[in-house]
């Protein structure tokens, strides 16, 4: 579905964020990009979204997505403060000239906020705002969902709930998910494939398949802790010295 081929990104100031990143993503995959801050995970996500262009290499799609076929969830919910939850979720439909036809209520319903369609962002908690942001990304029924550390700023309880919700949405919608995180626990719980990245300039150090089932019970499974330990060891060797403490924290 998506091929990232020897992609590099060097910014005008000279900072090299990515070097020689190659990755194949199949339809329906759930891939986590895992690495310390500054290793180019978000840059890679923005390149995939078409929000930035690579300095080297190429990103090719089996079928190039049209506007609305990629959903993006940012680290902060970034909702329009003057618009209700329903209006925020409807925004992608308006911008891509699609009919709503109940899609807004459906998307809000998927994240458990159907009753909050008329609420303004200031009336919602941080977790609820993030749910609205996810509903906004889902409302166009995208083929690809890109999430850039969406749960990093949330408390652990809200984060766990949203992680389980995201797994449920992925199972029911069947879309392809690229999920950026610097939490090994989060990546091991959510993703079916983990892409371990080196510190700047970011490159793929290893790709690890997740043998655990994608459901809430995994959290209490001793195999989960063992898998996290395996990935931690792989990450340690990928990182060498730089960024180790941050990722292993």
């Amino acid at each position, binding site marked *: 579905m998506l091929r990232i081929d020897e992609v590099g990104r060097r910014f005008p100031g000279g900072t090299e964020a990515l070097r020689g990143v190659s990755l194949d993503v199949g339809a329906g995959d759930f891939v986590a990009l895992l690495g310390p801050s500054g290793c180019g995970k978000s840059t890679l996500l923005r390149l995939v979204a078409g*929000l930035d262009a690579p300095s080297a290499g190429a990103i090719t799609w089996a079928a190039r997505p049209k*506007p*609305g076929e*990629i959903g*993006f969830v940012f680290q902060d919910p*970034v909702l329009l403060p*003057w*618009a209700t939850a329903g209006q925020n979720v409807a*925004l992608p439909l308006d*911008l891509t000239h699609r009919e709503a036809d109940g899609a807004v209520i459906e998307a809000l319903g998927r994240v458990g906020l159907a009753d909050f369609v008329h609420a303004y962002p200031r009336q919602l908690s941080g977790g609820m705002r993030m749910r609205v942001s996810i509903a906004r990304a889902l409302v166009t029924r995208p083929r690809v969902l890109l999430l850039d550390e969406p749960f990093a700023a949330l408390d652990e309880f809200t984060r766990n709930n949203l992680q389980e919700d995201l797994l449920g949405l992925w199972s029911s919608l069947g879309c392809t998910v690229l999920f950026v995180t610097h939490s090994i626990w989060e990546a091991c719980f959510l993703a079916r494939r983990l892409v371990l990245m080196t510190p700047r300039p970011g490159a793929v150090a290893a790709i690890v398949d997740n043998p655990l089932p994608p459901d809430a019970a995994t959290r209490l499974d001793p195999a989960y802790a063992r898998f996290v330990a395996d990935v931690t060891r792989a990450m340690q060797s990928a990182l060498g010295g730089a960024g180790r403490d941050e990722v292993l924290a």
Partner: protein
Amino acid sequence: MRGAAAGFGLLVLALWEAAVRFFAVPRYILPGPIAIVQAFVADPLGLLAALGSTLAVTFAALVAAAVLGGGLAMAMASSRMARAAILPWAVALQVTPIVAIAPLIIVWVNDPFASLVVCATIVAFFPVFANTAAGLDAVAPELRELFQLYGAGRWAVLTRLRIPSALPYFLAGLRISGGLALVGAVVAEFVAGSGGFASGLAYRILEAGYRLQVPRMFAALVLLALAGVAINAGLGAFGRWVLRTRGDAA
């Protein structure tokens, strides 16, 4: 807390009145508060009519500044060429002393009311212009990227994102411009008054000054100060109402 402010004000007035009486300061040097009130009571309609005239100029200038400042800021936001063309002139207009160009404007613009409005607009224009321009540029980068992701054109970005984002900045600028419009109106009236237009409070101040009616001068000044406070408070309340109605403020 509001009671404390009023109490302090009354205390200051009482001390002022007592000091003027104790030191027997002549009225033409410094009148006491009671003399000022008496001067107002002697001709309330004349002073209030003059205040009405000044406020008419002020509000006309404020509307003109809002339209001109908001419009030019939007033009700047929509094109780099427009920004390069407009910004230096806007700054030049802001740093030019209005007292220096008011006589010219009064000569050029035939209608006295319009000439006063032009002068006051020049003074009031910049805050609303600069604030709106800052607001149009202060959109969260993630929201810009969201619009880009969904293929939004420049017009959609301007009307659906940048202009709504700039509204709080525009309202803050409008509040500053309200006070400046009053200042601009008074300055223009001073210049025009010396040229023979008899209308606003500034003219009344000039007239009272020529006649050494200092308590009347003070009465006019108090009216101006109260008008300034009312404009500021009114525009602040208006801004809060707009944002509350729109939903982005509690």
